[in-house]
């Protein structure tokens, strides 16, 4: 496919550079977080006391699979996808949005019906040696579909009635993802939809009503369908400051019967507490790369995926946190800037939708790491380990650059 050479000159190198820098920082953190695998072993107190040699062997860490190498592969693949997405004009992609939407829905439905259950969820699609989470890619499709729907509207301002169709379309995808279950990913579609609708001209009052309605519906549905551990996470979060012996605690216990998650004998607050300890103990300068006790000794759960930011905070301290947040802010600011300067409504809405998803994921994930919001299985784009999440990030950035470099072109 031929590409106009002038387009290349319009590539936003700052945005691309920022993304790649974050991906590299992510690699380093993944390498640090997965240096040691914590296999339980019988500690022979006798051996430990008898001699240093035996002591050493008892504590000798086992090397975990070099996850960071796989992440290099994911980034490489992501870059290829990025290039492909860059080359195809976003307007042509938008033309195929209905087809992509149907394909997405079919894949998600198929996953629910025929997918293999991994750790109780049907998130994974196995394609030969690759394992993919289609939901991550569906996020891009959803952004495309919603952006197109609102771009086509020529109204000065939109009413609740005008958002029904795109809203329903988004809801179907979100529901299919939520049923896997993957509430975190499903929830990403909500801020995206609102952002695009808002930019598309939805009246603020209608937006407010919609947010309230959605909140209620999501709350009700979520509670009905949520699994034990999901409820527990929420309740743990909501009742952090409620004493279980107190009046409120006892009332809660009457209505909420929560089964402990199998294997999670340490209580639901464990993850959140350990993460906060990791963050706080990092201090200003951090404990040093590869030196974070919480990360290195396995206290931090999901440290290379959803809680990679804890590793950053613990090992590089406030300095590292500031730096990475600054990089994300640069990325997001630049992206919204792209939306503002887009040539057409479609471009603007598409970029805004993608930017909202990225922003939501970054802010929610970092807030979760700090213990400010309940724990959701949301990876941190570009930093967290995971092929699908990396692919999503590069696809999104590809589309954003796609819109940006075509802003002067007819």
């Amino acid at each position, binding site marked *: 496919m031929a590409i106009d050479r002038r387009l290349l000159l319009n590539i936003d190198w700052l945005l691309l550079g920022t993304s790649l820098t974050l991906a590299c920082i992510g690699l380093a953190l993944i390498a640090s977080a997965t240096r040691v695998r*914590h296999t339980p072993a019988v500690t022979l107190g006798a051996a430990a006391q008898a001699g240093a040699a035996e002591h050493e062997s008892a504590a000798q860490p086992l090397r975990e699979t070099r996850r960071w190498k796989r992440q290099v592969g994911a980034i490489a693949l992501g870059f290829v996808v990025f290039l492909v997405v860059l080359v195809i004009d976003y307007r042509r992609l938008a033309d195929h949005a209905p087809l992509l939407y149907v394909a997405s829905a079919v894949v998600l439905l198929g996953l629910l019906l025929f997918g293999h259950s991994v750790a109780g969820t049907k998130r994974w699609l196995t394609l030969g040696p690759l394992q993919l989470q289609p939901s991550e890619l569906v996020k891009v499709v959803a952004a495309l579909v919603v952006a197109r729907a609102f771009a086509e509207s020529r109204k000065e301002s939109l009413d609740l009635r005008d958002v029904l169709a795109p809203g329903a379309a988004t809801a179907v995808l979100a529901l299919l993802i939520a049923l896997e279950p993957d509430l975190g990913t499903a929830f990403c579609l909500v801020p995206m939809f609102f952002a695009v609708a808002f*930019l598309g001209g939805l009246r603020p009052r209608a937006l407010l009503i919609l947010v309230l309605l959605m909140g209620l519906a999501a709350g009700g549905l979520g509670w009905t369908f949520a699994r034990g551990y999901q409820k527990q996470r929420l309740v743990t979060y909501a009742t952090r400051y409620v004493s279980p012996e107190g009046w409120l605690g006892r009332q809660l216990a009457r209505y909420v019967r929560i089964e402990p998650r199998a294997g999670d004998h340490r209580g639901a607050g464990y993850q959140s507490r350990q993460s906060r300890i990791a963050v706080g103990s990092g201090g200003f300068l951090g404990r040093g790369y590869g030196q974070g006790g919480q990360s290195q000794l396995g206290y931090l759960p999901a440290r290379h995926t959803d809680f990679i930011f804890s590793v950053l905070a613990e090992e590089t301290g406030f300095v590292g946190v500031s730096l990475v947040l600054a990089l994300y802010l640069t990325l997001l600011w630049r992206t919204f800037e792209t939306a503002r300067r887009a040539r057409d409504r479609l471009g603007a809405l598409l970029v805004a939708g993608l930017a909202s998803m990225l922003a939501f994921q970054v802010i929610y994930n970092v807030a979760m790491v700090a213990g400010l919001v309940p724990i959701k299985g949301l990876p941190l784009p570009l930093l967290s380990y995971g092929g699908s999440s990396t692919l999503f990030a590069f696809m999104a950035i590809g589309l954003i650059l796609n819109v940006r470099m075509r802003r002067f072109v007819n």
Partner: protein
Amino acid sequence: MRIYEDMRLAQARVAVLQYSVVVACATLLVVFWYLQVLRGRHYRELADNNQSRQIPIQAPRGPMLDRSGVILAENRASFSILLRPEDCPNLDAIIASLSRLLHVSESQIRERIARRGAPFQLVVVKANASEQDVASIVARRLELPQLEVNPVPLRSYPLGPAGAHALGRVGEITERQLGSDDYAGVHAGTLVGQAGLEASYNRFLMGREGVRRVIVNSHGVEVREEKHEEAVDGPRLELTLVAALQRAMEQAFARRAGCGVAIDPRTGEVLALVSRPSFDPNDFSTGIDPTRWARLMADPDTPLIDRVIQGQYSPGSLFKVVMATAALEEGVVTPETILHCAGQITLYGNVFHCHRAQGHGAISLRRALAESCNVYFYQVGVRLAIGRIARYAQKLGLGAPTGLDLPHEMSGLIPDPEWKQRVQGKPWYAGETVSVAIGQGQVTVTPLQMACVAACVANGGRLPKPYFVRAIGGVPQPHTAPQPVGLKPETLAAVRDGMWAVVNEHGTGWRAQITGHDVCGKTGSAQVVSHEHLARSGGANEELLPHAWFIGFAPRDNPRVAFAFLVEHGGAGGEAAAPVAQAFLQRFFGENDAQQQVAGAN
């Protein structure tokens, strides 16, 4: 033709999103500033608490040696299998498989888990595990990673039951002890002395606990060690006991119930102390099982009681030694005084009997002691009256603990009018003095007190304060020497003479004779029921027989040993207790080593 879209609204609204993101990022940055910079120290501490664990290193308990270095209590290596319940996601399944593997009941494991002092503490699932147990756990280390196998020093007592009451026993610290200041800093589950010398010298024997601070990962597996402070071994206790004599005394009882104690009259050193029936202190070292403990506690023969210091018996005729001393000191009789025994005497309107119905006739103090004439001492008692009797008894150490370094010593009782008024609210009847004169009535003594009385007569009127420990960790311990009680040499000479006659001149204690050694002694029988009751039962019921007593010292000149023996329900002291003393003394004088050890140590 291109249609230019109206982008103004969208562009304006993008700015809203853009600035929202900036605000959100700034907020997050403030939160991280708070968590990392303002509260960093707090979370650093939490992280350290998380990751480091203090593991106490038990100090080996100090050994106990007899006076020639024979080991009486030591530590043997054993293995304990421990479990940290917090690390078990499926505790029930693990308890079930442990119960199967180690042959320990599930309820017992649960009880131990429930009883431990603090969460995250290791629970001993099985103490003193066999090699097989250890092998079966180590072989399953991948299935049961929560288990630890730890070497544990196990207290062992080579003398077994023979040394039980002197040496004592160890056991897990009790709830009450945990709360007391004497055991400050001792963890729940620690073995501490629970009886005997193990208890009274527990503080020394325990040594100082060491500590390891280790970094553990989230599975509780030790990753590295941060601090290692070695434990300081408990110092060794060098005792005055002679292992061979201890064994000899135990054998002298020939499985009968009773007790005996031998001390060096010159110093108060305890050479041997036996109480029977006994128990095996080795059973307690691993934590005795509840049924066995219940059986020991409920045993009517009270094997856990140290009769030498906790048995309060009627002294019977032993008290005549006290009476003779008092009478001579007070001058109510002299060695030459002759009194008449007609087999009975009427005093204060009551008839009091002698054990010999036909009477002893005209009798001196010497013969009265030798033949244990009651009528002679009834009259002495009347002449002395209760006040003086009590005063001399107390002077000789009766009615108060001797101060032996064992816990829970009893004091016995020397009654007097003041005591009776206070406790029973009744006046003293003169007739009671007559009973007291021959050691009946309310008088009670412990065998150790009587051994001290014998020692006092033997060593020239100095009352010893008996003790067991000569040195702790090689440092000799100061001891108070026997204190003079203020008796005239003539008094002591006469009493000694009488006690010699008891054994060597047709006296009641002739069965204690040893050729070549002048044994001096006094027999006694402590009634457990009245004479009438005993007569009615026809003597068939052994439990109604009096306790047989024999106290004394040997040799007569320069005595090296003073002793007290009591055979429960043995009958007459001369028949049951004197032979036990004789068997013991035979070994005392026979065991050349023992003799030399005793001599050499002084």
